């Protein structure tokens, strides 16, 4: 079944190379939140009281309200593992649903570690990969062949142009294709119209867990309702205050009415935060307070993350703000160059023990990355802008895939043949190199290879050994954590994001506030919130005001723009 089984335990990153133990095994700046639990705890028993309470519920619907850094994934995976190891539930009856491939892979790795030596594994899927697997099994019911394909964006655009909106879907089917929407819509239609089929899938997926439940949209919700009866073993976990996908159809309302949909549901709250310092958590609580969807919102600091103050920085411009970021990174590293040290603007000892992958710069809009990237490049600091860098979208990939001969030979071998024929077509050669890791994972399974490409497997052209500063949008930062976090552009109109002259939108603003809450709660030790006095937006430089979301902050330090100090001459004095 494509993409639905967890990857092998040792997958992900390139840390496994038989090297000295002191070296961090973390792959490139992809830094999923570490397992959160009481210090020194491990294995099935390393759970705190709240986590244990959630794990103890083995039957019926369960809602887990999990604040940031409280061990959400840990709780979910331990719960599934315990169902299998202690309650005799067959792994193949367990289904865990996530929103991203990355989250699915991480959960797979953790479950594999908790269930060593088992051949059968719980199914871990994204909504789309689950939909795809149902379609692969039921393809005849919707008029598709067993080898149906997934139309990429170019193909979709082509068909839309040729057939118009009305003829588009029919044309897709004639071409034996589905699009991304179909991956949810078609299985939903099947299940909603066929009780017998529904019963079969319910029988297979007797224990279902859904991660990030605050982010489900209406069709995903309906699909879940078909898969889980009202008294079913459905566990939903999430945090309404981290609901940030309303703009693309997610509805936090489904989370808030879970107990109406599943009347026998029990609720457990996770409030013990292992990720962030007390001062970061205090700031997080103050940011979310005016709009929280969690009555009695509470985050208890249990980790040891130092006592650095949350820092506010007012910059003159976007460029000055970016320079502040670069300078602060250098300062925390104790200077990254002789220049920084000898010119006197990096003077700390760099005793924090940080590497580049410990830093993240978060922003509301992708466009803001430019100034930050420029400032970091100017001082030579390595960074990686993380975005949806789909392998399928890379130049040459489509042509390389089209050139595969389609036989049963291992894909890696077929790709080598493509490269040979490509001669000096640099684009195709580069594409082949990018495709090889996926090809090796898929062996000779053409369908899986094409499905994974279509489902958006990300290009990984970076050497996994490299540490880099992460640049990412607040949305993309969800689920990650970093010792040092910068949130840039905390400005009215940018965070909350609003078109100039637009009417106030309380609901939209509330989601924007939750977005800042997500950003703030990514920080473990150091948090810097900055804003510029003016910024280029919509074609011209406009004055920008400080975001009202910062108004409630009480315990903060303010730092001025760091100006490089001139070297003072004649300091050869000997004091003693």
């Amino acid at each position, binding site marked *: 079944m494509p993409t639905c089984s967890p990857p092998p335990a040792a997958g992900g990153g390139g840390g496994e190379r038989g090297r000295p133990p002191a070296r961090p095994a973390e792959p490139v700046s992809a830094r999923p939140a570490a397992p959160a639990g009481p210090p020194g705890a491990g294995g099935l028993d390393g759970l705190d009281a709240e986590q244990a309470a959630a794990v103890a519920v083995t039957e019926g619907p369960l809602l887990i309200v999990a604040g940031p850094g409280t061990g959400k994934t840990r709780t979910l995976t331990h719960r599934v593992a315990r169902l299998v190891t202690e309650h005799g539930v067959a792994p193949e009856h367990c289904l865990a649903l996530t929103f991203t491939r990355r989250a699915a892979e991480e959960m797979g790795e953790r479950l594999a570690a908790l269930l060593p030596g088992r051949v059968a594994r719980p199914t871990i899927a994204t909504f789309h990969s689950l939909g795809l697997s149902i379609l692969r099994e039921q393809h005849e019911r919707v008029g598709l062949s067993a080898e149906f394909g997934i139309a990429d964006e170019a193909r979709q655009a082509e068909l839309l142009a040729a057939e118009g909106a009305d003829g588009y879907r029919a044309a897709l089917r004639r071409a034996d294709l589905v699009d991304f929407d179909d991956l949810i819509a078609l299985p939903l239609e099947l299940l909603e119209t066929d009780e017998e089929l529904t019963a079969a899938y319910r029988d297979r997926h007797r224990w279902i867990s859904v991660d990030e439940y605050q982010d489900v949209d209406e069709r995903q919700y309906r699909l879940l309702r078909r898969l889980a009866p009202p008294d079913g073993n459905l566990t939903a976990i999430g945090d309404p205050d981290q609901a940030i996908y309303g703009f693309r159809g997610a509805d936090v309302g489904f989370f808030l009415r879970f107990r109406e949909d599943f009347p026998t549901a029990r609720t457990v709250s996770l409030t013990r935060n292992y990720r962030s310092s007390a001062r970061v958590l205090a700031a997080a609580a103050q940011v979310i307070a005016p709009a929280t969807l969690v009555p009695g919102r509470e985050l208890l600091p249990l980790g040891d993350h130092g006592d650095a103050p949350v820092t506010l920085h007012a910059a003159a411009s976007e460029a000055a703000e970016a320079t502040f970021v670069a300078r602060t990174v250098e300062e925390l590293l104790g200077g990254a160059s002789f220049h920084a040290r000898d010119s006197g603007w990096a003077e700390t000892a760099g005793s924090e*023990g940080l590497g580049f992958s410990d830093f993240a710069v978060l922003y509301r809009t992708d466009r803001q990355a430019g100034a930050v990237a420029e400032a970091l490049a100017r001082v*030579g600091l*390595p960074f990686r802008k993380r975005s949806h860098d789909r392998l399928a979208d890379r130049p040459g990939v489509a042509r390389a895939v089209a050139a595969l001969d389609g036989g049963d030979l291992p894909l890696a071998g077929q790709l080598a043949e493509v490269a040979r024929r490509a001669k000096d077509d640099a684009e195709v050669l580069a594409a082949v190199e990018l495709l090889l890791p996926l090809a090796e994972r898929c062996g000779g399974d053409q369908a899986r290879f094409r499905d994974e490409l279509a489902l958006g497997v990300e290009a990984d052209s*970076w050497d996994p050994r490299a540490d880099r500063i992460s640049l990412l949008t607040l949305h993309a930062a969800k689920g990650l954590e970093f010792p040092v976090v910068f949130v840039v552009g905390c400005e009215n109109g940018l965070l909350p994001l609003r078109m100039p002259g637009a009417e106030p939108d309380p609901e939209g603003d509330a989601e924007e506030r939750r977005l800042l809450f997500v950003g703030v709660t990514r920080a473990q030790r150091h948090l810097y919130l900055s804003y510029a006095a003016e910024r280029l937006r919509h074609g011209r430089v406009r004055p920008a005001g400080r975001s009202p979301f910062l108004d409630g902050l009480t315990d903060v330090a303010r730092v001025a723009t760091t100006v490089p100090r001139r070297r003072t001459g004649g*300091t050869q004095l000997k004091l003693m």
Partner: protein
Amino acid sequence: MPRVRFHADLHIHSKFSRACSKDCDLEHLTWWARRKGISLVGTGDFTHPAWFAHLRETLVPAEPGLFRLREELDRDIARRLAPSLAAAPVRFMLSVEISTIYKRGDRTRKVHHLVYMPDFDAAAEFNRRLARIGNIASDGRPILGLDSRDLLEIALECGEGAYLVPAHVWTPWFAVLGSKSGFDAIEDCYVDLADHIFALETGLSSDPAMNWRISGLDRYRLVSNSDAHSPPMLGRETTLFDTEMDYFAVRRALETGVGHVGSVEFFPEEGKYHTDGHRKCGVRMDPAETRAHGGICPVCGKPVTVGVLNRVEQLADRPEPVRPPGAPDFLSLVPLPEMVSEIAGVGPKSKRVLGEVERLTAALGPELSILEDVPVDDIAAHAPLLGEAVARLRRGEVLREAGFDGEYGVIRLFEPGELKRMTAVAAPALFEDEGLFGADQSEGTSGLSFALVRLPTVGVW
């Protein structure tokens, strides 16, 4: 191929590195190499795309693994040098300095490395791999978030004969043995690949004798280079070889010690990280004083920057230097322009010093020869005070004021006031050149030199 004795300077930077002179191009480097008396120069910065393109365009293959400037460019440069300097061949080898910054054992590590490649294909492969790790286009000395051991592995994989030398191994902030972000042993840094390291760059702030206090370093060849950020700084430290002029012969000499015949060194006190202190607070302390203060600056109360001398003492397992069997001697020199500057009482980069050195090298040969082996009488015939200065230098009679916390130290050949007395006596005979220096009199910077520029000193040379 015949063996030759030659100076090599294998750590320099191009104009594409931060804080480097825009004159750092191959033409200027070739001109200055001849002026200094250096036969083999590292290209520096070959990972930088623009510099790499310049190298490919400007260099042509010479002996195995080495390159020289294209014929017509080389002729142009020779034309602009005195006949005593113009004929000497200058060769280049592909070199780059890489800065790795990463975490190991919960500490931030910052280590600089010199990487050498035998040909353009190997260098291109190295560049391709590093481009997947960090930004190599923004600085000629790229900063990578990569474990040093992995950098070494990548370098070794790129071409037969590629090698890595840890750079200025003692500097506190950016070196393999540095006090702030290094390791206590070379092996701790490069772990399972440490056997591929066979040479260490001593840096300006340490000399071989200091390194001979640590038995763990006996197995490494100690090399010296200028780390020049502008062409006139070339050759302020060099490594001496007596081998064929050949990349692989140089590498072999460093690997085996045979053919590695010494180095030209700064007096280590001149280096900017020699002793301890805080530049900002104006505090300089020797290691004993630092220990007495518990490592804390008496002005600001923060830990002082611990210099190379102190760090060497921390790691030393011998009370006095013991030269390992077969290790060559070394020469401690002060760059010629600095000596001329002291005597003239104007800055070492001033037009007058430049002119004087030009006159001297035209008459006596390259700067390094003047310092090393031109008879003192011959020097004195052209510049009596310089003759005295070189005689003192060769006897090691120098006055040392140690550098600390990023501030260069000062090495003088004459006591305060001594030059004034000498020039006052010598002056009456020397007025014929007076017109030459009138315009330069405002260039004196220190109190000492200000007093001196009032005297007509130029003709004293």
